[in-house]
């Protein structure tokens, strides 16, 4: 079993000018998102973490997800699907 299963999946995000998500791709659908919350985590010691978290809401389908932008490698990941 690949250890990749236990890492958080990536997600396709189109950011706006601020670097905040404006659209995400969910199961092949491009969806506009509303940013409901955002915060930054910086932990420089040990294994460093530099992430910007965003709670995102879509209209149709009604979806609520938590994604983060990993500033270390400029990747976007889906941390949580609120279900």
């Amino acid at each position, binding site marked *: 079993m690949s250890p990749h299963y236990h890492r958080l999946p990536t997600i396709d995000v189109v950011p706006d000018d601020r670097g905040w998500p404006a659209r995400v791709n969910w199961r092949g659908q491009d969806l506009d998102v509303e940013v409901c919350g955002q*915060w930054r985590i910086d932990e420089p010691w040990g294994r460093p973490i530099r992430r910007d978290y965003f709670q995102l809401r879509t209209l149709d389908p009604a979806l609520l997800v938590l994604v983060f932008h990993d500033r270390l490698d400029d990747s976007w990941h889906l941390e949580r699907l609120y279900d």
Partner: protein
Amino acid sequence: MGVMRGQPLGSAHALAPEAAFLDAHPDHYREVLEAALETLLAVTPAVEGPAEPTDPAFGRILLGIEGLERLWGDEAAITRLALATACAILPGIPRAGIGNTRFGSSVAASVEASIPLGDASVEAAWLAPQPIGYLPADADTHGRFRRFGLTRIGDLAALPRSAVVARFGQHGGTLHDLALGLDARPLRPRRPVERLRAQLELESPIDGTEPLRFILHNLCAGLCAQLVARGAAVTTATLTLTLEDATEPGPEVVQHLPEPVARPDPIERLLLARLDQMTLSGPIAHVALELDGRAPGAGQQLTLFEPQAARADQFAWELAALAIRFPGQLWRTSVGDPEAPRHDERVHWEPVAL
């Protein structure tokens, strides 16, 4: 001066060359504190305090004082009594403080104060002007507090929690909770409350065990919650029924539990199963339930009696057999450090294997 517990002597000497260095006698410290804890049991059964000198909380004793007014008087009187008891045994001049929570009372003891009775907001209001140094954080975090200009506990409490977590990590959230007077960690008594008992006098006697189930469910739940809040678990349950027109207590069920139990479900199950085997000769007018509790010894964790435990072996063997046929496809999960910033540190995945 920067001298701290656990610091190498050479560093301490460099910081405070004029300091007097005394020989340590940890056995003696342990004995003295044990004696103090034992003596304080005469004041209240709810006494908590590590007796091990290497414990970071060594030297701090927590006493639960609810419900003692009839015995000793108001809180001030109880505190005076506890302090006098401690002073008779402990060196130096112990200080006492009263609070609604563990953290609050500890800070109150440092300044010999009494936090007004109330909820978290009351605790928070009292904590607000206190120095932020009272919060249990490492030197690095306190340094960051200083750099952010946070000097009082209230300064931290006034910040949005999300901001605190973002800047100080998940532990910052915990400190934020403490600053807001939110500390629901129960006092874990040194000695268990020996027995808790609840009785129900029924104006209209009940027939049969069906209505009794409802009563038992609620009595069990209530008493278990009490015991668990005191850090104990149940070892024996005694159910006593008094029948209508009986002159003395009637059928009694005494159920010993194979392991201490912290949940009401197994206790209910067992008592009801025993009741089902009994024939009652009349309606029930009085129900009494008594639970004997036991707290864990130092370093001991209580196991919980669970129905699944009886099938654990079968479960494990079946999983192992399947793992041979389907390697790498069966997983056991557990929570690691739930406050770790990384997902793979918060949860653990272990493949099932022989």
